[in-house]
């Protein structure tokens, strides 16, 4: 107290002035025509982040792809060699997040967001929940059988070789890369062109909900 309190008392009028100045400044920047952040445009207007995430500049797209594609691939491979279930789930989380950003690079924004909401928010929590319900100690590990490892290695390497052959050996018919699709278009298509699959999926979700609840319910005499 003492010195500070006196300073404040002395400074009170000045303080009010400064406060007024702050409010005035903020109000001025508040004027609608001063477009600081985005210039009022959407994604197609460009900008650093949309260049990286929207892939409109080749350099940015390459950087984004190698960064997040690399992360996705690395963490996917890390899942294979992790024994701790929770660690596996966290690596899966990294993969899913990176894939979501890849969707952004592919200008599928809606899909990218849904990927995060459904996977990171839903499925992953479900998985960790499952782990917690079914694990005896926080760091329980399953020994990996040598046979399983060998079989997995052989199968996946063969598969990978085959896929690579297919990917690199085929001359894909390529058109012009398409831009982003408005969510409204996607929504309209879901309820017109894809109405039947959409409804089928809805029914499936209902069935799954009932089925999961039935399976997970506590048995009582």
């Amino acid at each position, binding site marked *: 107290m003492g010195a500070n309190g006196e300073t404040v008392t002395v400074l009170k009028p000045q303080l009010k002035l400064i406060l007024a100045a702050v409010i005035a400044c903020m109000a001025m920047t508040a004027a*609608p025509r001063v477009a600081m952040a985005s210039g009022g445009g*959407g994604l197609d207007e460009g900008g650093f982040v949309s260049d990286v995430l929207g892939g409109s500049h080749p350099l940015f797209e390459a950087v984004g792809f190698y960064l997040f594609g690399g992360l996705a691939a690395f963490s996917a491979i890390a899942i294979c060699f992790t024994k701790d279930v929770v660690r596996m789930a966290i690596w899966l989380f990294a993969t899913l997040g990176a894939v979501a950003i890849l969707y952004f690079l592919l200008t599928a924004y809606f899909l990218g967001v849904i990927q995060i909401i459904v996977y990171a928010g839903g499925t992953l929590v479900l998985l960790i929940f499952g782990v917690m319900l079914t694990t005896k100690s926080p760091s329980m590990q399953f020994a990996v059988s040598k046979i399983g490892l060998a079989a997995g290695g052989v199968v996946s390497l063969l598969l990978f070789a085959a896929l690579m052959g297919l990917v690199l050996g085929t001359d894909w018919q390529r058109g012009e890369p398409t831009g982003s699709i408005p969510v409204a278009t996607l929504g309209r298509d879901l309820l017109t062109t894809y109405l039947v699959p959409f409804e089928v999926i809805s029914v499936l979700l209902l069935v799954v909900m009932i089925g999961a609840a039935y399976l997970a319910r506590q048995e009582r005499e």
Partner: protein
Amino acid sequence: MTQFSTPWVERNKPNLSAIEKLMVGVAMSVAGLAAPILRRFPAAIFFGAVAGGVVGIYLVALLSEAFLGEYHLLRDILAVTGVSLFAAHIPLFAIWWERKVAARIQSRMGPMRVGGWHGWAQSMADGIKLIAKEDLVPAAADAALFRLAPYVTLIPVVIAFLTLPFGAHWIFRNMDVGLLVIVAMLGVEVVGVIMAGWGSNSKWTVYGAMREACQMVSYEIPMGISLLLPVLTIGSLNLVQIGDAQAGGWHTWLAFQSPFMFVAAVAYYITSLASCKRAPFDLPESESELVAGFLTEYSGIRWSLFFFAEYVAMYIVAALAVVLFFGGWSSPISPEWIPDWMGRFLFADNAAARAAQGLILGGPIWMVVKSFFLVFVQMWVRWTLPRIRIDQVLYSCIQVLLPLMLVLLIGQTLWVLWVPEDSLLAMVTRIALSSFTGLAGLGACWIIFKARLKKRALVGVLAVEQLPGA
């Protein structure tokens, strides 16, 4: 002679790496240099810095308008800087504010000393102390998860600012899916909490993580549905469009658009408390049951990162409520209500007129003020209500809120279909709901005013002397 025969053991000096030594040295010397100034002009420097920062950003914004690069790099860098600075200052302010609010609710003063005027520098001092604390990782913890968890919690909530509008043009990235990005980021935050709880390898933290997972699966569905109501009313996921649709004055705010929206706004607010782990839904860290829940093993800067995340998330859910239900960045005044003589000055094309528009008709300042008001309500609720139990959380979210939200969704759909914007029913509803809320607000103001009049009486007959610094 003391009664203790054991001599004092000389304490070990902390083992600091070269970088840490450098950081400590720099911090000490900066503090040493700044101390005399800080001591003399405490609040003036703070407000001066804020004012200078705002003016600076404003100037650079004007400059960047003039020299836009091909990829708008400067603009984006500026925006990122501004948004991160803003996000970083929310906890600094809100933690101090929360302590003051709590103190006032509990008839005490709260922080009064650090910095001078009402202890404004309290959270900065706390931050410095927390940075200086030893970074402890329990021996049995999963060190990687333990260290990673605070960042997984903090980064998503800052990313959510990317699509959170402060004004019609004050948005970092105006995306079609802006709302969903924010919802997604709030969902990712949960993963960090679960990682922290699991990685600490303590039974209390695991309980905290389990509760967070439980709570998340129960609140997210009603929360998602309540967000759908404004979306289906406006027909867009774009937050700027939703905000712009409410610019026509107080009664056009979406919360007053129909009874269903009004209830949905309240329900969203309840679920948003659960989403940022605020009382009465602070079960993951319920300090009287689980010691500190998922935070039990954390200390120092990692602990404070969780708090950063919590306060930023508080702001984000409040801002989302403002954009979706309470008029966004527009003020309660409709441009149509401006009389002609005033409009001549107000709609002129000069800096003063723009400033007046920003104040009267709406702009970022309204958005921030409204959001912080809702943050204040969160604090108010926290310091008033007891904590509910985990089974009651699940019950209220899944068995009460979820059916309610489904009914509201159907009701709102039918309302949009059958009640035209300009019909009598819509008008009456708008006016009734908005005036109801307005009267409630006036009533609250009256109560506060009366309490201020009776201020001395409230303290009690045997009250001690007023604290210094008040």
